[in-house]
């Protein structure tokens, strides 16, 4: 039953991997008996392969979740029940939110972390490679179960991605228990992934690299991982309580037995708000890597970036009830959560200002990663500013649960998080694949995405302000024009993403201009010392790192 002891890797191998700018390294003789084909991907413990798996999975989920969004948009193209029935519409809205959040954005960032953190800190791999593989493969299982609920009797989750009790407990479809178990698996995956990332960052940095010498992407992920470990268990706790309410007759969320439905919301948002920062902090890290590269100027305010990220993370624990301004909180709670939420604008502003100060008096060029990053800054800021409007509790009585909120969070998530992920892909694809992404396709992808995204989500501000509630399959006539625009934009944006798939396919097939080790002129960091594509195993011996010369915080 117990397998043979795995062979010990020879120590001398792969030293040349680390030679600055070295050419591709012969992998022969190293890591014997590498399985091939499908088995290779199933059994791998390599951080690059697992990173790739995560990203491909995220892309697949992005398309599935996006297709669901397009079903939503198709129904909303015109008033009236035109395309799907309300039950199905609710399932689409819910699954769209769940899949995008847990299946697309989070795994995409974890994939980037897997690929990049070890090479950015000079580590041979992730700290716990087997656990890493385990974390990944939990996701396909989890999402297969989640998607299969759509085919169960009574349909899949139809209570919104926030699954408020008692709609999701007493009134939920029978498949809700499967939904909960699927979320448990995804949660375990996230927690273990985060543990791995923290251990890697704290323990596997190359000698001499202090914490304040780490690239910002690593820093943002360190803090994100901390958030994940702190809040995913709370989500696990609350869904467990749901499971008990549904199947074992407890009354946590039922006033008749002494419980409170609002307790569900407190627990959910204690997780949920940090969760939204989990989806943006790594994006900050990406943009902080790309902007200096193409401004050919060092990042302004490295230290304040780190402190700002940490402040955002800490504040994110005490703002959760801004999602609950209308549930009837006591006045003092209302005021506390309003003030704390507004405060988050300060450290976030610091980040935006630092990026702009980096651009200021730089030498700027507009390669694809830079375009996406610049678009990120502008559009994320728009989303952030509408967030500040939402934070004003008395006015949120009018905004809450309208399309104004939908506009807000799509601005921070789609032209925010998604654009940052796309920027990262365009930036590091040369390192991953060895060839530059196709510029023509990339440009078309960029411009169509920018136009599509704004056409989709900008009008939602107006329909929301004018009074359109969210999560409705049918609406009053005066919202018709804005919705038609949003739907057209949604399809434009969605279809443009096929261009991105084309870019990826070309890169995988190595069609394109070959990239040198230092793929971008102004790029800094250990990953650019590796050949492009980076060999499977890198930094078996820690690379040289001289803080005075290499640190992003050097003077």
């Amino acid at each position: 039953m117990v397998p043979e002891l795995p062979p010990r890797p020879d120590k001398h191998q792969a030293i040349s991997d680390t030679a600055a700018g070295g050419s591709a390294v012969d992998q022969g003789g190293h890591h014997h008996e590498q399985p091939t084909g499908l088995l290779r991907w199933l059994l791998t413990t390599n951080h690059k392969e697992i990173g790739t798996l995560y990203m491909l999975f995220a892309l697949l989920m992005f398309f599935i979740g996006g297709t669901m969004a397009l079903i939503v948009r198709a129904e909303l193209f015109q008033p009236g029940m035109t395309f799907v029935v309300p039950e199905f519409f609710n399932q689409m809205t819910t699954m769209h939110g769940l899949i995008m959040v847990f299946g697309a954005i989070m795994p995409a960032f974890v994939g980037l972390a897997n690929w990049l953190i070890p090479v950015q800190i000079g580590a041979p791999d992730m700290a716990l490679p087997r656990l890493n593989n385990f974390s990944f493969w939990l996701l396909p299982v989890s999402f297969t179960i989640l998607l299969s609920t759509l085919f169960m009797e009574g349909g899949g989750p139809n209570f919104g991605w926030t699954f408020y009790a008692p709609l999701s407990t007493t009134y939920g479809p029978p498949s809700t228990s499967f939904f909960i178990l699927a979320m448990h698996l995804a949660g375990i995956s996230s927690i273990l992934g985060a543990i791995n990332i923290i251990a890697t960052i704290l323990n596997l940095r190359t000698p001499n690299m202090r914490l304040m010498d780490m690239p910002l992407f690593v820093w943002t992920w360190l803090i994100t991982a901390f958030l994940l470990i702190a809040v995913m268990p709370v989500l696990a706790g609350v869904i467990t309580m749901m499971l008990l309410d549904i199947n074992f007759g407890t009354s946590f969320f039922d006033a008749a037995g002494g419980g409170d439905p609002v307790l569900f919301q407190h627990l959910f948002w204690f997780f949920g708000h940090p969760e939204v920062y989990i989806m943006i902090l790594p994006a900050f890290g990406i943009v902080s890597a790309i902007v200096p590269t193409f401004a050919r100027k060092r990042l302004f305010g490295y230290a304040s970036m780190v402190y700002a990220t940490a402040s955002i993370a800490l504040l994110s624990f005490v703002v959760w009830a801004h999602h609950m301004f209308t549930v009837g909180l006591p006045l003092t709670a209302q005021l506390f959560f309003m003030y704390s939420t507004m405060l988050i604008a300060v450290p976030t502003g610091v980040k935006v200002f630092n990026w702009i100060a980096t651009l200021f008096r730089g030498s700027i060029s507009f390669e694809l990663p830079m375009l996406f990053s610049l678009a990120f800054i502008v559009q994320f800021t728009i989303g952030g500013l509408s967030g500040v409007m939402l934070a004003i509790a008395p006015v949120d009585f009018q905004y809450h649960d309208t399309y104004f909120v939908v506009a807000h969070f799509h601005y921070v998530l789609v032209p925010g998080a998604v654009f940052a992920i796309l920027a990262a892909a365009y930036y590091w694809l040369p390192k991953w694949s060895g060839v530059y992404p196709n510029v023509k396709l990339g440009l078309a992808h960029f411009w169509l995405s920018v136009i599509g995204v704004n056409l989709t989500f900008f009008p939602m501000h107006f329909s929301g302000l004018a009074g359109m509630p969210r999560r409705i399959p049918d609406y009053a006539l005066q919202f018709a024009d804005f919705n038609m625009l949003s739907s057209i934009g949604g399809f434009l944006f969605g279809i443009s993403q096929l261009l991105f798939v084309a870019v990826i396919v070309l890169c995988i097939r190595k069609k394109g201009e070959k990239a040198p080790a230092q793929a971008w002129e102004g790029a800094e960091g250990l990953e650019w010392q590796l050949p492009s594509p980076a060999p499977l195993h890198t930094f078996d011996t820690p690379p040289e790192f001289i803080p005075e010369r290499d640190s992003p915080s050097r003077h």
Partner: protein
Amino acid sequence: MSTSSYYVPATSKWPIISVIFLGFLAVGAGMLMTSGSGLIPFLIGFVGTLWVMYGWFMDVFKESQAGLYDAQMDRSFRQGMAWFIFSEVMFFAAFFGTLFYIRVFALPWLDGEGAKGVTALLWPDFVATWPLMTTPDPSIGGPDAIVNPWTLPLINTLLLVASSITLTFAHHALKHQDRKKLINWLVATLVLGGVFLVIQGIEYVHAWTELGLTLQAGIYGATFFLLTGFHGVHVTIGLIILAVMLVRVLKGHFTPDQHFAFEASAWYWHFVDVVWIGLFLFVYVF
């Protein structure tokens, strides 16, 4: 910083096998809860998961015994374990948060006190007490009586505290290469933990059958079993881990300065112990 290279296992079949079994476990559990069928996938998943854990940990032991792990690897394990325990702390924090929210906010509101006191219009006869013997809607019904903290729960507290101490003695013995003492103290810990579980079981049966204290007994029953139940599950896991440690000790594993697996189990056990103290105070006593 060590000069030896960091050990990266080549490939491993365990992760993929274990997710398959976990999938069975989840689907089986879901089926059991929704339709009553599903025992077979559930059992396949359960047994399979146990088997995987055995196999996976065996690999790790072997690698460890073979000296593949250096000090850096050791730190990775330590940090991994420490953060894992932190995640468990947050898991229980959600449950304690529930308990406090119910007691401090929800029940007084239902009884007409505080910011949402108008709620009492809906429950004119309701009186908030803790333990909550009569629920707002009396048809749900609270427990008839509650467990007296100064009987079995007190004994259990003493048992768990004692087990933390005996485990510390065992650890000392390990550090001082006193294998005999190590084995004795470890066995003592296991016995104490085992007796704890037995007593907990007796208490549950007593509560369920004689006190009317069940999961369905309103919010008191719900929080009582939520907290003590998940704690009990963690004691069980802790005991299994400690039992594995005993087996390894008997096989001659661990050296005075290389025994992280043992330490990790001790951390876990102490954590479970601390949670119990919180439970004893806030679930039973106050």
